[in-house]
């Protein structure tokens, strides 16, 4: 079976086995005593129609008990393949060589059956997508108990059930006893990920591998799940391998970091070494490419041009060289080895970097200069006071309620889902306005309502002076479409796969009645504007990378010269390094063309970087709105405070000491919206209030009010400019109130 699919000759197979032996012997010598997991020279190859893909090339690491190793890399860097190879979960057709030792026992080459003694017992794994990782037809309890049964055949039924309840309680699922009988579809994504963790720790594993465990979740839920992982690690004393693309997530958790690129580790070291003293340009670029939610200072992000290499042809030089601004001739001469660079040496992993120029790099080097990050663009509107600029979009009391119907023949209304409930805001020329909130808070519905532009809508939408109440006939609508265009979240889905780029860009132009020669000229302009090669117009979308596709989407939106562009999660589907380039482009276009943006995003770091103003939405209502720096630096509403504190920052020292508000539970269904303040059910301030004051939150609905002078707020250092006029507004009776201690978490790591 495998011989004809892998296409490797017998000689080469033998060779692999020999290598495996050699590596095994080698690792026995060099593995530090006490390591629970030692990986040496791990290589993984896949066969494809186009040739052999060498997905993982020479991974080495040791994992000490109770420690956490973070593996960081972009998609295709081989980090997930590494974890699957360790777990023995790769398809049979994969060719794996090297050595993986668990407590000194070689795992590679074990049969599926032999491997099963280790999997789920000493070694467990949590996967990325909680929605598809649980079997839909079995109860949660049955799935946890199965993990217990496999490794403890003698355990009694009662004991197993008791242990399952204990596990569910440990991962923070309320009333665990009843929930045992629930099916996965009755759980939210965050709850399912907790169940996944419960399954993983069921048999007290020594090694826990978490593969992007929070990528699919909201920030607030991410904070909860990371907390659960932390607890799980403490309870079991397991060593953790945390795989992620998010440098913030591992900053607070990991002891050691391994950065992977093109299937290889390019830099390893203790977490402080990597974050504060990176010695490889790729690591530096990655760190510079992520915006920070905690700083107001506006600098351009570091864009890493190009895309990762394919792993079919063996690299002849440094695989990062084509994208590296420092690359010179000698970088193309052989792949640089991962060599010690002499860092602080405080981690299990020695600080090593695979770069011949690592000596020249270090803490003092300015990454922006190396990667020639563009200047921060300045819009002509930036100098004009906000009040003097024209409004390009105005929403007045917009509502979208969906009736919830039940009944077979005669439908009766059993409730109303208030997806958007009385939204008012405006966007002025040249500014970027962002809406943030958890999924389900109504931000996407808001966008749809604006794009809909219909007379029968509840509330007034005014776009470039055209109001939906005044006229919404075809002509007005067409005029409105020229003022307002949209960029979608998924760049692949937003482009018709059967259109060439030329056809994609021509569609809005043809529709506006432009003549053929003019269209051609305009398309060339647009291609250059978004940084694409004009001679690529005859290509199909699938011939571009994700970042380039998003640029095409932006070019399409700009085709008819709109004043306002609606951005629906414009970078969330892109890799970190590509994301930076697109954010810079958006920034630059806003300045050069005097555009306004209405953006919806869940990544608050991106929002902080690109926006001028921000609105925080919760259950269809704006709970806080204002200038982005004011809101992010001095959040008044407890929800904003919780949201901001949930975002991990790529700064290990800060992360380790940071106080975190962990909200309880999920976003409640909009149907059960309580009478008073929507947020009361999860509010950390409310929980700490005396019952007398709680009464007010439960009965009266707070409205948006202008923030008082920040200095007047109790318990807050009067550091800010006390008399500066502010348009920050929030809807809470007890802003800046004391927080409930149960919802506060601080990790004091030694």
């Amino acid at each position, binding site marked *: 079976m495998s011989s004809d*699919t892998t296409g490797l000759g017998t000689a080469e197979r033998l060779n692999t086995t020999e290598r495996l032996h050699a590596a095994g012997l080698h690792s026995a010598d060099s593995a530090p005593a006490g390591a629970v997991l030692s990986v040496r020279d791990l290589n993984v190859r*896949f*066969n*494809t*129609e*186009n*040739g052999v*893909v060498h*997905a993982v090339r020479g991974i080495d690491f040791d994992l000490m008990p109770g420690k956490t190793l973070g593996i960081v890399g*972009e*998609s*295709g*860097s*081989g*980090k*997930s*393949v590494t974890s699957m190879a360790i777990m023995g979960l790769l398809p049979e*057709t994969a060719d794996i060589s090297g050595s993986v030792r668990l407590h000194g026992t070689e795992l590679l080459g074990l049969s599926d059956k032999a491997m099963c003694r280790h999997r789920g017992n000493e070694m467990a794994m949590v*996967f*990325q997508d909680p929605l598809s990782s649980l079997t839909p037809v079995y109860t949660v309890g049955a799935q946890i108990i199965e993990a217990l049964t496999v490794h403890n055949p003698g355990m009694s039924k009662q004991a197993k059930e008791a242990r399952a309840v204990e596990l569910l309680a440990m991962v923070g699922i309320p009333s665990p006893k009843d929930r045992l009988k629930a099916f996965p579809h009755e759980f939210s994504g965050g709850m399912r990920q907790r169940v996944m963790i419960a399954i993983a720790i069921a048999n007290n594993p020594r090694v826990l591998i978490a*593969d*992007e465990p929070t*990528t699919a979740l909201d920030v607030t839920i991410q904070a909860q799940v990371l907390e659960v992982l932390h607890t799980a690690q403490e309870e079991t004393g397991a060593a953790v391998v945390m*795989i992620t693309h998010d440098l913030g997530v591992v900053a607070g958790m990991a002891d050691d970091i391994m950065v992977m690129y093109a299937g290889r580790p390019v830099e390893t070291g203790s977490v402080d070494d990597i974050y504060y003293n990176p010695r490889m340009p790729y690591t530096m670029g990655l760190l510079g490419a992520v915006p920070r939610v905690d700083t107001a200072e506006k600098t351009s992000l570091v864009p890493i041009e190009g*895309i*990762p*290499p*394919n*792993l*079919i042809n063996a690299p002849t030089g440094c695989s990062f060289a084509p994208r590296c601004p420092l690359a010179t001739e000698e970088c193309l001469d052989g792949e640089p080895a991962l060599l010690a660079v002499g860092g602080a040496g405080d981690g299990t992993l020695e600080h090593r970097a695979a770069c011949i120029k690592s000596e020249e790099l270090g803490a003092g080097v300015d990454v922006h200069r190396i990667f020639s990050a563009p200047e921060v663009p300045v819009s002509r509107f930036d100098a004009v006071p906000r009040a003097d600029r024209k409004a390009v979009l105005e929403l007045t009391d917009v509502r979208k309620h969906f009736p919830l119907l039940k009944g077979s023949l005669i439908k009766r209304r059993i409730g109303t889902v208030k997806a958007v409930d009385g939204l008012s805001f405006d966007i002025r020329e040249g500014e970027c306005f962002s809406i943030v909130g958890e999924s389900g808070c109504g931000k996407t519905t808001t966008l749809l309502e604006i*794009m809909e532009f219909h007379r029968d809508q509840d509330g007034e939408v005014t776009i470039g002076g055209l109001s939906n109440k005044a006229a919404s006939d075809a002509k007005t*609508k*067409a005029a409105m*479409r020229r003022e307002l*265009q*949209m960029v*979608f*979240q*998924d760049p692949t*889905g*937003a*482009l*018709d*796969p*059967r259109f060439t780029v030329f056809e994609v860009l021509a*569609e*809005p132009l043809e*529709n506006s009645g432009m003549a053929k020669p003019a269209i051609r000229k305009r398309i060339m302009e647009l291609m250059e504007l978004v940084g694409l090669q004009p001679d690529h117009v*005859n*290509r*199909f979308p*699938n*011939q*571009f*990378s994700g970042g380039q596709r998003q640029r095409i*989407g932006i070019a*399409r939106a700009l085709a*008819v010269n709109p004043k306002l562009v609606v951005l629906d999660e414009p970078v969330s*589907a892109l*890799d970190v390094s590509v994301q930076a380039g697109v954010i810079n482009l958006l920034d630059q276009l806003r300045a050069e063309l005097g555009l306004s943006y209405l953006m919806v995003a869940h990544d608050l770091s991106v929002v902080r970087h690109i926006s001028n103003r921000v609105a925080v939405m919760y259950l269809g209502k704006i709970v806080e709105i204002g200038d982005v720096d004011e809101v992010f630096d001095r959040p008044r509403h407890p929800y904003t405070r919780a949201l901001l504190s949930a975002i991990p920052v790529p700064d290990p020292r800060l992360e380790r000491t940071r106080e975190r508000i962990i909200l309880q539970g999920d976003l409640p269904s909009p149907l059960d919206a309580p009478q008073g303040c929507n947020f009361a059910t999860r509010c950390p301030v409310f929980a700490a209030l005396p019952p007398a004051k709680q009464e007010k939150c439960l009965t009266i609905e707070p409205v948006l009010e202008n923030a008082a002078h920040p200095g007047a707020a109790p318990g807050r250092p009067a550091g800010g400019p006390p008399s500066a006029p502010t348009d920050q507004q929030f809807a809470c009776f007890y802003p800046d109130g004391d927080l409930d201690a149960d919802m506060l978490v601080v990790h004091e790591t030694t």
Partner: protein
Amino acid sequence: MTNLNAIDPAAVAEEAKIEDGDVVIAKSRIILRRFLRNKTAVAGLVIFILLTLLSFFGGALSSWDKETIDPFNIGTEPSAEHLLGTSQAGIDLYALTVEGTRVSILIGLVVGLVSVLIAAVYGCTMAYFGGKVDKIMLFILEALIMMPALLVVAVATSGGGDGLKKSLPSWLLLIIVLLVFSWMGTARLIRSLSMSLMQRDFVKAAQYMGVPARRIVWRHLVPNIGSLLVLDITRGVTGAILSEVAFSFIGIGIKVPDVSLGVLIGQATSQVSTFPWMFWVPLTVMFLLTGSLAMMNDGLRDAFDPSSSSIGSAKKRKKATA
């Protein structure tokens, strides 16, 4: 997302293509190339074309026609004079088979093409209008599915006194009845596919640009369900040929004096032991016909399936299903 990409070698290979600036190829060209690479499918296409040509022009190759009785050769085995032998009435079997094949192919092609057309129009209309229109049209569709097609075929083609039946040849009547009962499944598929397409971002993008609905349907919806339509045409043709043969075989489809493959096979059943060639010749032709279509269908499915070229096992699947 990231983890899936990482273990999917296809994505890596795809990226490789982008990077190497691989030749820019139109999608239709890729599909054609994939189809031509599939030998079974090409063989199917060749057989089908040959049979079609033979059925239309093959009559000229023989001096006999389907009406002339050869009194000297009644019920003879294949010989030099009668390539495939004669029937017990002394009619040349080659001439009969050519005629029968033509009728069968004609029924298959007309029913296959027209039913997909009806299905496309009906399905797109349902998806486009949605709401009440969709509900009513779905009800009609399901009611039609519930009708046992065979009974209606039998009623319609049975020689009652109706004027319509007198004026129409039985093959045309069969075409009409098969048409009425063959499009519902495809229509339902097209409906659900278009509905999901309507939710796709590129359709929304076109709507937000203010592109008129008619244009969206024509430029975005139809090309994107095109592959399904092509597949359904070959499937529909096969289905129609099979139904014709089945109905005529038990004597309720095509009626004598018209001939078709089904009629020939059906008539020969009573004398399989005495005149075996009368049975096996039309049966072989029918197998060639439906078999070639199935082979083509398989190749088309692989050519349209975007995932088929990516995995090494794709080649094997073709063998398995061929």
